[in-house]
């Protein structure tokens, strides 16, 4: 059994988002980068499956050299080896092509991703990779069990969940509560330093979409406080001023 987990290298969820160079570049100044929270759920479940089934676990990132500490962290959490496709991840179709190319070479049984990246929030790469490989893609997956070659999953749908089954191979876009985030321990951190991290060149360079400029939303005005003993006033404001009732 071979599992591949796709990892994004994204700004910490508390980061202040800013841009430089006339709003054409993300401002990395003071920003800490982390494993995408959804990818972290996928990784946590993959580590459990690895232990349960004796699988091998590879992590992959499409990104430039700066993402290597994030891949090392995934190794510390429990992946066996890592692949970095050396390219700027400019658009989801491009990223999907890279992942599909590696997957074709290595025949993974299960490809796990996050339901979406938290920088561009596409929620697209899993479906694209599934289509490129001609295998099913399921997202957002909140439970995933493997019995033989059958994958039993629960998928979140608007207002509830759906239980479904499919055969391996499969691509899953994951979210909580599939597993609890794992924090690397000392032994993991030490062993991660020597685990293999392979750097490969990208396959093709066609880019379908490209960001030209970034923009921040307009600043929020200050809050209007209403006394707690005068809630009728709030209802009036919502009706007459905000016009939302």
């Amino acid at each position, binding site marked *: 059994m071979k599992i591949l987990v796709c990892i994004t290298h994204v700004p910490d969820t508390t980061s202040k988002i800013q841009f430089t160079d006339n709003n054409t570049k993300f401002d990395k100044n003071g920003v800490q980068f982390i494993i995408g929270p959804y990818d972290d759920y996928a990784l946590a479940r993959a580590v459990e499956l690895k232990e349960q089934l004796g699988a091998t676990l590879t992590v992959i990132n499409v990104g430039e050299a700066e993402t290597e500490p994030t891949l090392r962290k995934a190794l510390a959490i429990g992946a066996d080896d890592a692949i970095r496709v050396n390219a700027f991840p400019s658009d989801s*179709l491009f990223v999907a092509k890279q992942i599909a190319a590696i997957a074709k070479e290595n025949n993974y049984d299960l490809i796990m991703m996050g339901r*979406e990246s938290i920088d561009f929030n*596409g929620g697209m790469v899993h479906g694209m990779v599934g289509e490129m490989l001609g295998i099913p893609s399921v997202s957002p997956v*909140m439970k995933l069990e493997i019995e033989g070659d059958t994958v039993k999953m629960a998928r*979140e749908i608007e207002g509830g969940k*759906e239980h479904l089954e499919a055969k391996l191979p499969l691509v899953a876009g994951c979210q909580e509560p599939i597993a609890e985030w794992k924090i690397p321990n000392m032994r993991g951190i030490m062993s991660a330093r020597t685990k293999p991290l392979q750097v490969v060149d990208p396959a093709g360079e066609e880019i*379908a979409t490209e*960001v030209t400029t970034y923009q921040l939303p307009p600043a929020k005005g200050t809050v209007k406080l209403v006394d707690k003993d005068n*809630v009728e006033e709030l209802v009036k404001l919502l009706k007459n001023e905000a016009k939302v009732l």
Partner: protein
Amino acid sequence: MSVLVYIEHAEGSVKKTSLEAVSYGKALSEKLSAGEVIAVALGRLDSGELANVGQAGADKVIHVDDEKLNAGVIQAHAEAVAKVYQQSGSSTLVLAKSSMGDAVAARLAVKLGAALVSNVVDLPDTSNGYKVKRSIYTGKAFAETSVNKEHKILAVKKNAVDLKMNGSAAPVEKVDLDIAPANFVTEITSTDKATGEVLLPEADIVVSGGRGMKGPENWNLIEDLAKELGAGTGCSKPVSDIGWRPHHEHVGQTGVKVAPSLYVAVGISGAIQHLAGVNSSKCIVVINKDAEAPFFKAADYGIVGDAFEVLPKLTEAVKALK
């Protein structure tokens, strides 16, 4: 040439977000002279309900009336939409961003060799190339994105476009498609669905509770207000993590992103990850006993007070309004 809009339906009605996508498709077609707006619906659904899609701007509805497509099997939906897209000679596919929409759009981008832009918040600007504005960093920024392919798929963010229901009923054309069994490789074994509730992603008003509500036994206070407002109910992440509320109610960066007209947050501190799920709301009301709670900085209106005192009064005041 035409604009194809993929529409989703649940429990016999077309989703509001899909109607918004149709309105977007109509505005896009008018702006770019992109031809007819054709909506495509998959699975069993009443023709009258489908004709209604015309009011949101569709010139025609193509209905693949195949029971097998009622279940949301992603691959089968992608295959069906691809066929309709090609048969109708469309150049743009529009759909509402949702868990099903994303999954289908992604597979379609590969099938059709199309460029895909997600979280679209505005009509394309074609004054210099083809540029679309989309929301990124979970609503914390926007990116003007240039699209370099002939075929385009635009996944529209909810509440980003005005829903106009000023068109007229559209003709519904039934189409039979031959979807190969190989597309039905995932089997849906059962569904647990909250019925009769206002669905969170669709709700126009949302009332959410956080850890300040102290326990699940107090949620009747949230539900009473929600009921009076016709609202959906949400919660913060710790609340669903501890199991006070179901997971699908969890709002925020790692949960549901809502964009209602009114978001009422009760006993929620306003951590940045929670705000990421609500920052597209039109109006935010915060009720918190701590005047320093960060949520007040993101709010339009606020009450500093104890939720257990304020909520019953607020529910009464809303009732009195009617």
